[in-house]
């Protein structure tokens, strides 16, 4: 897979480390009533999407930026690559 890095251009996916579903941005509120339940879900439960999913890739052997990919888990097609910092700002 080739990942089109927003700053560096096309890079081989083997330069990256995979972290999984971008849902990890949504860290549960530590003051919530259902804290244990929320963290259990956050830590262990996944949609495991069949089709397009947003996911976190870390450019470990490159510029060490975190990216958010929109990638199809059935075809491996990547239709969008964003810097995680920007993704987070937009999805606040």
């Amino acid at each position, binding site marked *: *897979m080739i990942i089109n890095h927003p700053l560096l251009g096309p890079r*081989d*996916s*083997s330069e990256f480390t*995979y972290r*999984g*579903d971008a849902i990890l941005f949504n860290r549960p509120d530590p003051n919530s009533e259902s804290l244990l339940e929320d963290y*259990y879900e956050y*830590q*262990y*439960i*996944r*949609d*495991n*999407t*069949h089709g397009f*999913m947003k*996911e976190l890739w870390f450019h470990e052997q490159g510029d060490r930026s975190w990216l958010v990919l929109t*990638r199809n*888990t*059935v*075809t*491996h097609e990547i239709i969008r690559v964003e810097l995680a910092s920007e993704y987070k700002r937009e999805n606040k």
Partner: protein
Amino acid sequence: MTYSALKIIKEALTGHRGWKPVWQKSEPKKSYDIIIIGGGGHGLATAYYLAKKYKQTKIAVLEKGWIGGGNVGRNTTIIRSNYMLNNNQAFYEFSLKLWERIEKDINYNAMVSQRGIINLFHSDVQRDSYIRRGNTMRIHGTDAILLNQDEVKKKYPFLNYENARFPIKGGLWQPRGGTVRHDAVAWGYAHAADKYGVDIIENCEVVGFEIVNGKCIGVKTNKGNIKANKIGVAVAGNSSKVMNMAGMRLPIESHVLQAFVSEGLKPILPGVITYGAGHFYVSQSDKGGLVFGGDIDGYNSYAQRGNLPVVEDVCEGGVSLMPMIGKARLLRMWGGIMDMSMDGSPIIDKTHISGLYFNGGWCYGGFKATPASGYSFAHLLATDTHHEVAKNYTLDRFKSGLTIDEKGQGAQPNLH
């Protein structure tokens, strides 16, 4: 049809005209007592043990493709019971014992070959942890032998002992480990289940569940709706997709694992060798091909094919372990979808929906588990209680903190 030496002689003399299909193709009836979704090794074994051991009748196995098209026909065929954690060791030892008598049991030649498996170690620390694992195995009554470098050299003279980064210092050897012909396991269980009257229905994809007042009463398929009292799901890499139809989310990610086979060679490899440090393991099939693999690709995937960086990584590992492999040509490679769980261990449990049972999370090691998985899933479906060896493979262990994390990697499925 029963297979025997006598039958082979008879058929040889009469022009092989009397062989019948290994199992009958069935079409769905309106209702069953028990439906198993997924005609892989686990689903078929479950149906077989349900019928034979737990005396259940009116059972159907629904398979969306063909028998043997899933992971049961894609794996690298290794069986072993060299785990360390109590919860795993008892289960996998039970499985190995079932493998040891499976051919008689199902009346099918699965070519079970206990040619031994060795896990290589490269440092003092790794040796100590293997000693610990070996001792745990022996406490469970499993065979485990620690080999030093000379003993490994005698068995496998062709390995590279001079590797600067990972010099081979010895290995933990399990003589009873080995390989089984994977297709024959699928066909054999299908054959045996069919003999007990199980309907094996291919090209039948489950596309939904019928759930009324918290009870699952049937499935929707491309061949119509089918009712059942109990429904067991054993769909490996598609676990999340299928359970999602019942509104459930799982502690599982689907990942692709690749496997490779070389052209046929004369016998050179006496057993299974695993080289964890180099992301490589290998055995030789009876046809002569070197069957090998490495790590999962590492990203979520439902595509039954991987990418080239892992191909390179696996081949590099192979050449660094046994340089002569560089002369062999790669014949075929393929991928299968692993149901990677959050602690690297499987789940065999009821769900919160009455009548709906789940079996999954097998990661890259579910082939060797096939008999025990089928046996204990059948136990659960028939008796509504957990089988002794599988009682800790619960869905709620992630909530209670009783995870079974053999590798100690935490909730990161691609690292297990």
